[in-house]
């Protein structure tokens, strides 16, 4: 019975969902941490370092994610780096996201008036302190819409980890399809719905965060 197979398979979808959420959480954490450092480096580090960061960004933004996964998971063992599929996927997701996020943050940094860092220097802050206490807090606030976007893209792109054998939501769906191919439409509709709800909720949460951390004087919506 197809219906029975479906009901029996539901817990496996939940397992897959948990792996998807883990991939998303670790991937975005890596991407955000690295992205902030890269953006700050690109804007404030010495020219050679800024240039290296630029190359890193260009390369990672220029490779399809699935290719990156294959390089890390199947390619790296040839140079002695063996990673399990989950780690390889998190690394691929995080590295690529860091390159995109660095762009988001750099745009935000460019919109912070130069006077802010002058004021920080005038108080006796070192460059590092000025970046940490004055630039980054403003940069993050200004980056929330772009970051939300990147978060939802990363969440959906975890499904590509299916390609290197991570048993996440997509892969669990595929297992059900293999067991009973008559379920394919309903299963992938269900999976599509799960992704949609995740993305939708994430966006709603980020709207609240955006409102909470909005800087006074940056409220364009007041003029709707």
């Amino acid at each position: 019975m197809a219906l029975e197979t479906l009901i029996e398979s539901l817990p496996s979808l939940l397992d897959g969902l948990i792996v998807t959420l883990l991939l998303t959480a670790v991937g975005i954490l890596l991407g955000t941490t690295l992205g902030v450092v890269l953006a700050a480096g690109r804007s404030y580090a010495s020219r050679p370092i800024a240039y290296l960061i630029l190359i890193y960004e260009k390369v990672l933004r220029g490779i399809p994610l699935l290719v990156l996964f294959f390089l890390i998971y199947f390619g790296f063992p040839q140079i002695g780096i063996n990673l399990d599929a989950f780690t390889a996927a998190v690394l691929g997701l995080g590295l690529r996201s860091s390159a995109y996020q660095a762009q988001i943050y750099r745009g935000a940094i460019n919109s912070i008036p130069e006077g802010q860092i002058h004021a920080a220097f005038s108080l006796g802050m070192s460059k590092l302190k000025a970046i940490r206490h004055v630039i980054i807090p403003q940069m993050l606030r200004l980056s929330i819409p772009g970051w939300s976007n990147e978060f939802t893209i990363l969440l959906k792109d975890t499904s590509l980890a299916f390609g290197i054998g991570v048993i996440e939501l997509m892969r669990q769906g595929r297992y059900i399809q293999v067991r009973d191919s008559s379920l394919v439409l309903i299963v992938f509709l269900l999976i599509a719905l799960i992704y949609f709800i995740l993305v939708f909720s994430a966006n709603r949460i980020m709207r609240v965060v955006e409102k909470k951390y909005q800087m006074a004087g940056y409220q364009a919506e007041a003029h709707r």
Partner: protein
Amino acid sequence: MAMLEVKDIYKSYGKVPILKGVSFTMEKEETKVIIGPSGTGKSTLLRCINQLSPPDKGQVWLDGEEITNPKTNINKMREKIGFVFQDFNLFNHLTALRNVSIGLEKVKKIEKDAAQKRALQELTRVGLEAQVGQYPAQLSGGQKQRVGIARALAMDPDVILFDEPTSALDPELIGDVLDVMKSLCGKVAMLVVTHEMGFARNVADEIIFMEGGIIVEQGSPKEMFTNAKMARTKEFLGRIGALYGEDETGG
């Protein structure tokens, strides 16, 4: 020995020379006002003093230490030099209170509660105890500038540099800021670039008239306003006095 000594400062932006050998000294708690036409290098001079734009040539000494020496810890020196900006430059993401306390917390490493207590004192001193929780965008220009002054004061500087502190303000808000500055006279050294002739005349210990990147003349307000030696000084003071109504503003 003078507290602040500026020796033969030169500065160009690209090929355009802005400062062509400026020297003067300041004593503890002295109030000095720099006046002169726009584009004369007054603001550049202030930025050369705290090294926001380092001079091409010349030296700046504060308390017997050479700021312009590359071996000097410039961050340490800047703690002693307050800076008040024409366009305020308050930290947009912080409340008035945190704007004033952040230097104490992050630079002077004072514990948060003590730093905020001190910040509250300084904000009260400039008449803003009711605005401590507001963000810069929620303050009027005059209030912003008074937060700017409180932020500088909280660091206990030896000298505060004021870069046209009232130029971006409505005439009716200028008075509040000038009153605060007047109240600081004799408590901390102030070097003020301004077009407020009333303030220069009544508050300054000495007025420096700059034009074309050099100091044309300097002297007490009385000498400068009634008995200037250089024809150019007389002309400028006459013109700007008529323009700004020297007897009405900030007197």
